[in-house]
């Protein structure tokens, strides 16, 4: 009886739920299909990344001879409405230990330059550094500051070049974007990126692959995000890799591994103050 009921109940549920599920998938698919490339990238840009986070990470640098070097760091990030503040404290290698980097990433609407500081323990000095050179290597890796801080939505023209392509079992849009003609010089100067193709997961608006054409002749970078999981309700790629190629030959690559991340843990404001960098290095 129980079994029957169970089966009956399950069957009933199936009968009731399947059309609803199909309907919602259809609606969602129709909604997604009606999205323009720009709409999709706007959703990617607006994706929830948490109010604040604390992460322990490792950056693995792989040179052209496949030798791997590791930099371990502790990272803090906090959203402030008009800007995001970010702090990275190097834990290893010994040569870089206690180096601290702070960045204020202002929203495009603020129309002001981002700000960055570096604390070098060898000098015991906090130095303001230019953050406009987003094409520069982030922590010496293949990731540039532009790759880390994300794209500026208003800087580019977007187009869908493929409506559907499967990546690791997930349906993706393939979107290409290039700097707007009026902003081309500025974008090239600050990011060094000529054109980008990106694969965006349709279910969560998450960039899982990108191919980035650089201004340097023959240089293309390949980005991939894997181990994408929901942590504290936030979709997070726990492994990101970037390969730099020149004339279709791999030059070097970098892997960013998130070993531990916590969202919404309450990060104080003090930690992002440049004048506290030396103390932050000593306290961590």
């Amino acid at each position, binding site marked *: 009886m129980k079994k029957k009921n169970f089966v009956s109940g399950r069957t009933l549920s199936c009968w009731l739920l399947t059309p609803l599920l199909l309907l919602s998938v259809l609606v969602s698919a129709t909604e997604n299909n009606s999205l323009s490339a720009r709409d999709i990238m706007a959703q990617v840009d607006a994706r929830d990344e948490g109010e604040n986070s604390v992460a322990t990470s490792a950056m*693995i640098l792989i040179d052209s001879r496949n030798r791997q*070097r590791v930099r371990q760091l502790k990272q803090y990030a906090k959203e402030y409405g008009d800007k995001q503040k970010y702090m990275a404290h190097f834990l290893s290698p*010994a040569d870089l230990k206690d180096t601290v980097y702070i960045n204020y990433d202002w929203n495009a609407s603020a129309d002001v330059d981002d700000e960055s500081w570096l604390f070098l323990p060898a000098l*015991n000095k906090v130095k303001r550094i230019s953050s406009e050179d987003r094409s520069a290597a982030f922590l010496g890796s293949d990731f540039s500051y532009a790759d880390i801080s994300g794209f500026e939505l208003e800087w580019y023209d977007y187009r869908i070049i493929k409506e559907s392509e499967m990546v690791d079992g997930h349906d993706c849009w393939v979107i290409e974007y290039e700097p707007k003609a009026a902003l081309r010089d500025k974008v090239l100067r600050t990011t060094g990126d000529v054109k980008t193709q990106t694969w965006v997961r349709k279910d969560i608006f998450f960039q899982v*692959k990108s191919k980035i054409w650089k201004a340097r002749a023959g240089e293309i970078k390949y980005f991939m995000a894997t181990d994408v999981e929901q942590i504290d309700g936030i979709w997070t790629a726990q492994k990101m890799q970037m390969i730099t190629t020149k004339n279709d030959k791999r030059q*070097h690559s970098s892997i960013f591994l998130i070993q531990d991340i916590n969202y919404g843990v309450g990060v104080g404001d003090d930690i992002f*103050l440049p004048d506290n960098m030396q*103390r932050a290095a000593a306290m961590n």
Partner: protein
Amino acid sequence: MLFKLTATALLRCYATSVLLACCMLHSAAANSDDFFADIDVNVDNLDQLPSPNKWFVRQLLSYGVEAPGQGFSRSEVGFNKIETSIHGEVSYTFSERISGRIEAEAFYDAIYRLDSDIQPSAQELSEFETRFQLRDAYLDISLTEQWHLRLGHQIIAWGQSDAVVIADVIAPHNNYTLLQADLRDVRLQVPAAHFTRSTSDFTLDMVLTYDAGFNQLAPLGNEFDPFIALRDLPQPLAQYNADNKIEYFVRLKHNFHGGDVSLIMAEANNNTLTLQQAKAEQLSFSQDRFSVLALTSSLSQGLWVYKAELGVHHNKSLMPAATKFNHYLGGWPQHDQLLSMAGFDYVGWRNTTLSLELNLQHTTGNTDALSIDKNEYGAMFSLLWSDTNEKLTVKANAISMLDNNGRIFRLNLEYPLTDAFKVGGLLVHYHFNQSDTLYPYRNNDVVQIYGQYDF
């Protein structure tokens, strides 16, 4: 028939698909898709957090490419340093509000035992053969949410200039050599109570030091013996700490979008020794007292960071000209000095940071009797290059010094063979004319190589 057609179509379609797929696979394998392949990470102990403590040993070989000349311990071209050092730093967090740190280095220079061409003075042997250097020994205490105290031996660096001391008057400097020391060894610790109050817009620093000492000077006969020109005098030279051992420093810093400006005030002892008294039995050098008022600023715009510093040193003792030395045996004359720096860092060229700073020093009053001109000009150009994911780092400096002190060129290369072991090389060239104060040190060019192992 229909079945046959369909089967043929399917077969063709299948064959075409297989061919197409093969082509695509081949094309993908040969081109971009390879670069989306997952890379294996082959690193041990990645899950373990590194120790908060740090140790390294360093071996340095230094070769003097010229003979320094008369009066110096080394008379021939050859090695002038075979130095082994061990560095340790230990941090400990006592509670959420209190943490501590100790950092120190010990050095052993084997050159005095291995090279008979060097005839070291007793002072040189005792100071350089074995040496201990405390870098930090302090407690960090959070008094409230915004007030913090760092108490103990600490290195404090203020100001923007890398070439001239304008606002950076707290930490004495290691002047054992001229620009040969590793950057981390340039500034020395001072015993201090350092209070800080930070908000997002303002930071207030108040520092009180006690018996902070003066710049480290090379001992008798060493290649950078600062008194080499006075060694022929019959009187011995003596160095004394300042009579008033307490120094006060205040900095108020305002951060605004893209920049900052700081006001610095100090009542301090000059870290450069000056003659206090010349008697028949002894020449006494000590620190004079002076006050400092300075403004520093940095501003980031695009690929540029602009830096400026302006300061007044009030009542500073200055060295008289060699011909007037005997007129000031009771103490060197005091003048006010206006010092300034304007410069920039530029990062828009091939993974390179290019820096330039220009310096101007103006001395008030009658400067005819002084070893310096009324207006002195200096400049420093720096280049730092490190390519993406490349190991080699290149640092180069060219300095035209204030105070008729000539020019110095420095080139430093570093290459980490592994995460724990790096090697490096340093070349320093001194260009001093006969009229330059540093002329006696013109033959001190060195080539150094070093290896450092971290554990």
